């Protein structure tokens, strides 16, 4: 820099009327003084007051955004959990409903079977009774038929002049009827 100052001095002392202003030396001390003062002042104000504040604001914003994102992630997780819980409960309820339906169906089928059995038994009983009566009646009728046939056979044999014994007629009629 002293070289420049020398050159400037040489230019200033050479007698040329207009000296190139940046190479004039008289204002160098003043320039340096005010530069030191103003640049130093600017540095102090910026580094002590303004830049920390700016960075604090930006940091705060960064934290805020990060915490918001965290919260969003947490809420998202909660939503997923709630969804899963809901699905679980739905499945449970569905299973329970199916079970209830099955139970009801089984109960109804049971009842139907019981009723059917009861009716069937009733019917069987009545049928058996009826059959008993029918066979009784038939036996009675057959007995009547036997006596009528025995009487008729005795009468017919009497006409032919034969007089069979009653037991013979009865056995003959029995053989003929069966």
């Amino acid at each position, binding site marked *: 820099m002293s070289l420049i100052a020398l050159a400037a001095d040489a230019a200033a002392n050479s007698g040329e009327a207009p000296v190139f202003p940046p190479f004039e030396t008289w204002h160098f*001390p*003043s320039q*340096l003084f*005010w*530069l030191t003062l103003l640049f130093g002042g600017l540095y102090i*104000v*910026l580094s002590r007051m303004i*830049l920390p504040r700016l960075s604090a604001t930006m940091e705060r914003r960064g934290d805020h955004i990060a915490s918001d994102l965290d919260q969003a992630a947490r809420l998202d997780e909660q939503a997923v959990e709630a969804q899963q819980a809901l699905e679980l409960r739905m499945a449970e309820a569905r299973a329970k409903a199916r079970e209830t339906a099955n139970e009801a169906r089984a109960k109804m089928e049971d009842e139907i079977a019981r009723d059917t059995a009861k009716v069937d038994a009733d019917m069987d009983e009545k049928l058996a009774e009826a059959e008993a009566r029918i066979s009784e009646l038939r036996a009675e009728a057959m007995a009547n038929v036997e006596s009528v046939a025995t009487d008729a056979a005795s009468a017919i044999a009497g006409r032919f002049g034969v007089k069979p014994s009653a037991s013979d007629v009865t056995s003959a009629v029995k053989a003929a009827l069966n």
Partner: protein
Amino acid sequence: MDLQFRQIADPIKQFEVVKWFDLKVGGVDLSFTNASGFMLLGVTMVIAFFGYAASRGQLVPSRIQSIGEMGYGFVADMVRSVAGEEGLKFFPFVFTLFFFIFFANMIGMSPYAFTTTSHIIVTAALALLVMAIVIGYGFYKNGLGFLKLFAPSGAPWYIMPLLMPIEIISFFARPLTLSLRLFANMLAGHIMLKLFAGFAVTLVGAGAAYIPVAFLAFGMGVALNALEFLVAALQAYVFAILTCVYLNDALHPAH
């Protein structure tokens, strides 16, 4: 008339330092000049802008707060990507440097404004400050290990005699290139702007026949103006990112 006109169009005049308030301390001239004034304006604007952005502190940022936070993120990403997480201890410095230069350059784009960074003494002081921090912190953190910076690892020993002088020279050229790059860009850009604008006015004054050429010169000035806005932003970025690169050397000298 001609003389006065030439004075207005003089492309160098915009760099002149003019005393606003006299101030002498122990025989040293510390006058408050237009350079100091515009530097104060830039610093005030940086503080006002970022102070407002920081004072909002809302979770959902307003527009200005959002831009302020973008500036913060931009510089923080730059420091982190170039100098790593450890480099973030220099973040306030790089931030101050970037926006000091950025606002100075942008204020300079306004007509009649003084461009603080178009003076070599300012850019040189900033570059030397950067180098002082790099060297100071480099030795403080690494001790003599900082000198490994000049001996790239992985290079075969027999090219070391060639390589080390190159590394040393390039290291000491850094403050020079760092300061000259910003200074020359701002100076040349503003001279060009003034030249084309002045040329346009001169051509109009020279006669009706030159008016089409004057429009050409004016159009060129407009195009250059756009370019200069790019340069103003870019040079602030270049200065800041090179600062990060140099700080990275101080943090990790063995590269």
